[in-house]
């Protein structure tokens, strides 16, 4: 990472370096987006759909996404399944073993919020975002492989806005309604009141 960071910082300081930086950014973002190798962190039911995603029928290799068992060779961790308190340190550790830049997809309700295991249980971590920075959430119990495919494409959009100089990264609009997001009100108004 150091090499890219230095390069970016140097180009950012150089007058006129911005031109090179922009095109370099474009190349790097393109290549990163098109080659998102997955770290399959499949723990429970969603792991089956994760397997199905890279197998014959759905074949994520078409998008350049292949699962690699070794965290050192991967770009995006797909957390598929329930994370328990016993499992949490292992997931954290695997995440730390992945080289930068890395992204995280929370696949399935369990990884998003604990899902069906939210209430009454003593051993489940309620959502992988309690300890990992999640980029894309997929709902579903379990989500279909198509949903994972959509998540990969969404992640590509997010990657394409990044820059090797952190200050130059374009803001990415979150698809989720945030607190205070006007859309949140719209959704409530649409769903709540009969027209």
């Amino acid at each position, binding site marked *: 990472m150091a*090499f890219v960071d230095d390069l970016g910082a140097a180009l950012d300081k150089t007058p006129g370096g911005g031109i090179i930086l922009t095109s370099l950014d474009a190349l790097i973002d393109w*290549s990163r987006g098109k080659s998102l190798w997955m770290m399959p962190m499949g723990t429970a039911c969603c792991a089956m759909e994760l397997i199905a995603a890279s197998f014959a029928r759905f074949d994520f290799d078409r*998008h*350049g996404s292949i699962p690699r068992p070794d965290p*050192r060779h991967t770009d995006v961790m797909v957390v598929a399944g329930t994370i328990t308190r016993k499992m949490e340190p292992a997931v954290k550790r695997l995440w730390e073993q992945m080289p930068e830049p890395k992204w995280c997809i929370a696949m399935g309700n369990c990884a998003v919020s604990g899902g069906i295991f939210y209430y009454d249980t003593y051993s489940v971590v309620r959502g992988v975002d309690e300890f990992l920075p999640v980029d894309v959430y997929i709902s579903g119990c379990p989500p279909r492989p198509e949903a994972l495919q959509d998540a990969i494409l969404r992640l590509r959009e997010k990657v394409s806005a990044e820059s090797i100089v952190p200050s130059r990264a374009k803001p990415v609009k979150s698809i989720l309604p945030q607190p205070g997001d006007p859309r949140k009100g719209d959704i409530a108004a649409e769903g709540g009141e009969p027209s």
Partner: protein
Amino acid sequence: MTLLWGFLWGVASVATIAGGAILGVWWERKVSARIQMRYGPQQIGPYGSLQMIADVPKLLFKEDIVPDLADKAVFKLAPLFVFGPVATSMVVIPFAAGWAPVDMSVGILFFLAVPSIEVIAILLSAWASHNTLSTIGGLRATAQMISYEIPRSLAVLSVVLLAGSLRPLDVLSAWQWWWAPLTFVGFVIYFIASIAEMNRGPFDIPEADSELVAGYFADYSGMRWASFMMAEYGSMIAASLFGAVVFFGGGWPLSGAAGVVLLVIKTVLIMTAVMWVKWTFPRPRQDQLMSFCWKVLTPLALLQLVIVGAVLPWL
């Protein structure tokens, strides 16, 4: 002058291997997809052929992790030593009759001997990672690669015996069509032993995905890992090319530029066969692999040598 020439060809060889590896990975992904009822890369370039163009910059700009407990200098240098011997061995292969990048009187010996240095590099990388599974992988690789040198060399020796020379150019010029059926067993032995030499499936025991996760390069990331992959594909290209030259007469029956094209086609066919084998067969166990080498391949290679030797006086 020779030194400069050699250096230039070395650079060309590195470039060939890098380019070949990029195309080879794409080809492998397509071939394996075809075998597995999938499509493989589709999105970048025609039939996804530029997929590796996206993968390589990504790996290049990845974080380069050196584990805390690793032997840092060795850890960083080992990938170079893995890649170097493969690139070096490429330069002695004759592409057409009378033309080899470096004409060496003991070229065949050179080709067989130099890639063996890779063993040391793999052992170094495994040791330097300070990781139990890497170490096991490295030790497995060492045992396997050293053992399979023997049947591989013996198989090539039968052709050398027929040609009466260790100079690749001489072999190519002396090559007759009936050598191919005569040394076919030798070729099969060479093919199997080469797969074991380059640690590819089904003999990918040192890096077995399902046992050792990634074996000796488990702790390498980014470009350092890519150079391991490149070395693997490089040795696949080199071994296929060499096999096409020695056992199938290079560009025979064509000559000149058409001959070179035919040589490339033969090489690609052998490479495809290597991939075909990888994506069909399960992986043997370490002890089964070794006993196969010593109890089957080596005696067979010796038998091939005896047959060739028996034919020799009648020529």
